[in-house]
């Protein structure tokens, strides 16, 4: 093939443009730390990267959902534990006052204490989390119990999604735990009946509430363990979510991140080729017969 200086220059320009493009690309990757800087860098890789990023964001959100659910259940559990203590206390009073050693005076004092317990129970039944009443079902914006213990909430179940398509109910209906709807005991009625019996110095009446209080205690304890079980479920899910997070972070990094050692080695190799092409061009292109005539 006949070679002209134009061919030499063309080849040189083509070669060094290519080298420069490749160097720029590696440099971009090193600067950003990412192997994929635009969709065309790796069309399949970018869909994976987006999918992993999306999953990580969702996992973060599920963690927030779980924490929110745990807040509900924790405050519910605390309120119910206090309720349990109050019922236990009422039970102790009832046992003490049911005995023959109790007299009219001690029962009057006890009646007052039961009234205080009643008010405390009513207060617990109106427990709030972030300005929301937790025992009112869906009616979170109005106090579900009045001072007489009448319920104005509903049976709404508030759910939290803790993983895709898995949601758990995080509220406990005040109607069920305080008012015994669905075959349980109405704690307010028991307390006010007990108080009436104490005021009336009615030993049989007092004794009659003992059994009721025991059932009520069981009812409260059942709900506490229900809340505890839910908290456990949420914690297990949270841990699994964290595991997934670690796994997807690794996957994302493996797909998206640049292998620095490899990139820098590659950059060095390209740079060497680039410099060599410049050196060769200097020697070949600049020489012609003109240099040797005369």
């Amino acid at each position, binding site marked *: 093939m006949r070679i002209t200086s134009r061919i030499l220059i063309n080849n040189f320009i083509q070669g060094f443009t290519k080298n420069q493009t490749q160097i720029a690309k590696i440099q971009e990757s090193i600067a950003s730390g990412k192997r994929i800087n635009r969709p065309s860098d790796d*069309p399949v890789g970018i*869909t994976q990267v*987006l*999918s992993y*990023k*999306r999953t990580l*964001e969702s996992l973060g*959100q599920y963690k927030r959902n779980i924490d929110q659910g745990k807040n509900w259940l924790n405050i519910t559990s605390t309120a119910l534990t206090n309720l349990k203590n109050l019922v236990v206390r009422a039970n102790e009073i009832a046992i003490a006052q049911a005995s023959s050693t109790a007299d009219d005076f001690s029962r009057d004092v006890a009646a007052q204490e039961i009234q205080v317990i009643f008010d405390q129970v009513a207060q617990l039944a109106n427990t709030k989390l972030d*300005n929301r009443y937790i025992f009112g079902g869906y009616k979170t914006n109005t106090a579900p119990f009045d001072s007489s213990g009448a319920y104005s909430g509903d049976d709404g179940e508030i759910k939290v999604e803790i993983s895709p398509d898995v949601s758990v109910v995080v509220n406990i209906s005040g109607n069920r735990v305080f008012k015994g709807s669905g075959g349980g005991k109405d704690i307010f009625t028991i307390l006010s009946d007990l108080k009436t019996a104490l005021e009336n110095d009615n030993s049989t009446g007092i004794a009659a509430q003992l059994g009721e209080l025991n059932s009520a205690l069981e009812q409260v304890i059942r709900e506490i363990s229900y809340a505890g079980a839910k908290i456990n479920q949420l914690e297990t899910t949270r841990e699994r979510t964290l595991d997934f997070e670690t796994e997807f972070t690794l996957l994302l990094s493996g797909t998206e991140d640049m292998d620095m050692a490899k990139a820098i080695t590659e950059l060095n190799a390209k740079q060497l080729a680039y410099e060599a092409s410049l050196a060769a061009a200097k020697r070949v292109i600049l020489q012609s017969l003109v240099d040797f005539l005369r």
Partner: protein
Amino acid sequence: MAGIDSIIQIGKRALVANKTALDVTSHNIANVNTEGYSRQRAVLNPTPPLDVQPGPIGTGVEIKMIERVYDRFLGLQITNEKQNLGRWEELSKLYDRVETTFTETSEASGLSQLMVDFWNAWYDLANNPTGQPERSTVRIKTETLANNLKQKASELQQIQKDSDSSINVGIGEINLLTKQIAILNEKISQIETRGLQANDYRDQRQNLIEELGHWLNITAFENEDGKVTILTGGGRPLVDNMTSWNLTAEKDSSGFYAVKWVDEKGNKTDITSSITSGKLGAWLEMRDTNLPDLLSQINELAAGLIKEVNRLHSQGIGLSPFTSLTSDYAVADPAQALSDINSGLPFYSEISTGSFQIWVYDNTGAVVTSATIAIDNTTTLNSLRTAVDAVTGITATINSNNTLTITGDSGNTFAFANDTSNALMALGLNTFFTGENALDISLNSVIEGDTNNIATGVVDPSTGNYGVGNNSIALSIAALQSKLTMSTDTVTFAEFYTNLVGYVGSKTQEATSNLEHQETIVNQLSNYQDSISGVSLDEEMANLMLFQQAYDAAAKLVTMADELFQTLLEMV
């Protein structure tokens, strides 16, 4: 036997011939860097000998012709490859722009991320339906998402418009080229009918033909008389003999330029569909096929979001029922069935036989009444109005712009529930989004005005009761992200979009690698052509020496002949 003057004649011819050869060499050296220049060669020939005793005696040298060293078939091949080069150059440039629109790698600004933010905002709202910050966040995230979709769609439209105006500019260039080629046809023919070679004009013409191929698909062939005929798509001539035909760009009903071929009488023929390569072909392909395809996908995504979110939202209730509500989508004709294609409703096809509930409350919040409104394929806006108006405690009217307004009487409020017909969603009653595609997707003004209207819960369909802590609608909307809602229920919204990004990536990659490939082909052909036609300075320098020496020697001949004459004269 010839006289001494024949030596002078031979010397003179040799001087002229070598001088001409030197001219040709100088011309070559001068044009060493001229694009498309083919080196020329003086073809030396002995002049006819004198047929005298003792045998034919040579009479010297002449320049037979000045030859252009050129491979015609290589020229044709380059013209062909330039058409593909032009196409990939422009496709690659345009896809680079498209890709920028879909670059998702920057944190926080990509559509993929914005969609996740949107769904997460709904989860946060589900976790606290009465929270004002959560409600504002849903609003802000929705607006950001809608704006991004709009921005993407309008960027794609902008690229489409730019391709379109490039077509108009390109046609101007093409007309200029064909005119010049026709003029060169004439010049070449004038020179060559005199038996000469129009070398430089041929180089110029070949350059212009290659340039023309860069713009659009052409077939060029040389006739026996040396003139070139050029045809473009559909066999329409652009150049024949000394005539050139113009192309013209005219806006058609779609608002885009159609490429038309103009005949000698000024009649125009649309040849848009037969332009398949060159820059013009690339612009047409992008404008008419590739960009509409991407636009339709992004529109499909937006329409899917609008549809699915609205379907759930329209059956829910915000923090309080409505005192008055106007439908978002207008119908074309209130007497037309809502589910008819001509109803004017963008989501008319979603309407099916079914019903929805309206619950009416008095100013204390107590239930006044409820009604179940039946919907089927004969329901019109008129009949719907009548049915809604008949419900105690509310009034329904049709506005001048063919929307429906429902108002509670004397402080009454109302809410919707349990829509099995999708009529609420299709009419835009109690909906979240407004619009029908990526260009007009927005937050419904009812929600923009008051975020308490974001539906999070539902009305109990048997009692009409509702509680603000109900988060079932918010949860369902948030859960849409993992539902198979797109591409006939095979992928999620996010997967649909991710696939689109991957598709744009692979198209861009394809354009880039095809461009590189095409550049290599054209470069190799050019190198090949250069090895035949290109000027080599080394070679020219050698020739320079050769012809210079010959010229010197020829001059010596004349001097020597003169001396011979002197010798003769001295004899006298």
